[in-house]
Structure formats: C-alpha cells, structure tokens
C-alpha cells in the first residue's frame, strides 16, 4: 500500500484537477443513521422492537405464531417478516390476527434499517405495541445490520450443532437473548445443552439463555416474562415523556 503512488505519477500542482479527499466514513454509517431513526420512532411510541435471528428452520415463525396467540390479549402486536421470496410467513402471522408486513429482500441476505423504516410507514403501529421483526434465516449477515431494535433475540434449535455459537460467533455476540428451541426433541438427540451454552457464553458473557419449545410451550412463560419486563420499560418511558409534555404545555 503506497498512498503516495496514486498521485505522485500524475499530479502536477496547478495543472490538474485531481485531489485526494479524506472522508473516514464508516461503511455501515448509513444503515446506522436509518437505525437511529427507527429507534427514535419506537421510543416516541413506547414500542418494544425485537429482532429475531437464526438459521433457516430453527422455528422462528412457529415461535412467533405461538407467542402472538399467547400475548395478544395483553399487547397490540405487529410483525415485520423478512424473506428472500414469498409471503408465506406473513400469512401465517396474519392468521393470528396480528398486523404483519412481508419484506422480500430479493437477492439480499438480511433486512437493513432502511427496509424496516419503509415497512414502518405502511404498518402504522399502535402506541405501546410489541414489534417482532423476523429477519431472513441466516446466522451471518443480519448480525452486522442494526435495525433500530431494542434487542436481538437469537434462536438456536436442538437439531442444529451445539457448537453453532462458536462457528457463527458474530450473531451470538450481537444478541442479548438466546432461545434454545425444540427442547421437546432433546430426549431423542445427543445435543449437549451445557456445551452449547458454554460456547455461547465464551463469545458473549452477557448472553441470557432460555430453553423453550414452541411446540409444547415449555419455557415460554419465562420468555414472556422477559418480553413483559422490557415492554414495561418502553411503555413507562413513553408515559413519562407524555407526563412531562403535559406539564410543559
């Protein structure tokens, strides 16, 4: 690498229009600014946004369908579904009565904050809602793209390798909660839960783990309590802001 070479050969002061421009801009800065816009929007509406990530087939949609059915009496819930193609998942979600919008990424391997911002324009989320974003099934790319969510929730199912957190560390480092799904299959498998959690904690010492089954409902009460606590935080922020606005006005 020679910074001088590009110019030294061709550049004559006063004779050429060429110049070097220092910009020092992070490649992901654009996505980050869209993500901050989304985050501001969620804050103004008291919305708890969760970004669900996993490899394909670990049960994101089934888990969401179950969670929506269990939580919909207490919460308004909206869903953004990311897939390369089809609107199958959004239809499964809509069958629960929740608002859902499908974002097809085409060749894209992840949702980005700009796509989510567009989806929010059409979704028209009620104040104090839960927003579940189901990212494209992919344990690599979605890790790098902040969507403005409060937390990434990573799903790993017991039919996958227990060393996935070691193989795909970025995603487990970016997440705040790991749901170890399909616990109902554990008796039939050689999956070592302890080893899996150890791999995950090595990458992210702050990662919380819950062992769940979207099929039998095992462990979901703990997950709902986790969601509830964080939704209360988002709501109380909004309530406080409204109270302050009333006082000021």
């Amino acid at each position: 690498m020679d910074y001088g070479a590009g110019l030294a050969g061709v550049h004559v002061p006063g004779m050429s229009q060429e110049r070097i421009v220092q910009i020092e801009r992070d490649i992901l800065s654009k996505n980050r600014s869209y993500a901050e816009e989304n985050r501001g929007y969620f804050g103004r509406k008291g919305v708890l946004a969760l970004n669900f990530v996993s490899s394909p087939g670990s049960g994101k949609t089934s888990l969401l369908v179950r969670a929506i059915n269990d939580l919909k009496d207490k919460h308004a819930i909206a869903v953004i579904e990311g897939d390369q193609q089809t609107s199958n998942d959004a239809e499964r979600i809509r069958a629960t009565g929740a608002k859902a919008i499908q974002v097809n990424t085409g060749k894209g391997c992840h949702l980005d904050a700009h796509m989510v911002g567009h989806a929010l324009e059409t979704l028209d989320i009620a104040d104090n809602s839960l927003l579940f974003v189901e990212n494209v099934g992919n344990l690599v790319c979605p890790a790098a793209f902040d969507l403005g969510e409060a937390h990434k929730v990573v799903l790993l199912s017991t039919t996958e390798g227990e060393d996935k957190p070691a193989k795909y560390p970025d995603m487990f480092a970016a997440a705040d909660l790991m749901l170890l799904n399909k616990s109902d299959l554990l008796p039939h498998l050689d999956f070592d839960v302890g080893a899996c959690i150890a791999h995950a904690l090595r990458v992210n010492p702050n990662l919380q783990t819950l062992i769940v089954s979207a099929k039998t409902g095992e462990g979901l009460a703990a997950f709902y309590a986790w969601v509830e606590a964080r939704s209360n935080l988002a709501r109380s922020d909004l309530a406080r802001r409204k109270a302050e606005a009333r006082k000021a006005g």
Partner: protein
Amino acid sequence: MHEMSLTESVVEILCEEGRRQGFARVKTVWLEIGTLSGVEPGAMEFCFDVVTRGTLAEGARLEIVRTPGQGWCLDCEKSVALVERFGACPECGGYKVQMTSGDEMRVKELEVE
C-alpha cells in the same frame, strides 16, 4: 458475508460526498477493512466493478488496506494479536480478550477530479 450491500453503501457514500464536496469523478477509493471484519476483499472487488457501473465511480481503482486484529487481554493486561474475532489470547490461552481493532469497515480516502 454481505459484500454486495456493503459495496452499495460505499457507492452511496461516494455519491453523497460527491454532491457535498463537488467532485464529479472518483478515480481511486481506499477502503480500510479489518482482518476480523468478516469481509472478503476479493468479493468486495468483484462487487465494486458491478455496483459502480453508471455512477461517478465507474472504472475507479479500489485499494483495500487490511488492518490486523488486536485485542486487550484482561488477564495479561496487555495488547495482543488476534487472528480470529472471538479467539483466545495467544500468550495465556484465555478468552478474556476485548477486540480493540481489526473490525474496521471504513472509506478512508478518495482520489477525485
């Protein structure tokens, strides 16, 4: 990883800076890509040629500067070399290493006219 959309972001940055700083053509782009960033420079070079077509950076030269991985080992209390993102400290073998550099993905400099 997702070199195509990263490269699209690079071109977006170039177009934005072109409007702001008043240049119409980019001849060389220097990117700083850390060795722990998960980005494949070869894939990025390939995408760059495709994505820049029809833009102010069409035909521009792409120079990728790799920055080595480094971390701070809490146990050794010093800076150590990191060859993988969540890897162990090469001196003590422990995993209490906080990455301090190597995950950069930045547009550093441009040669423009």
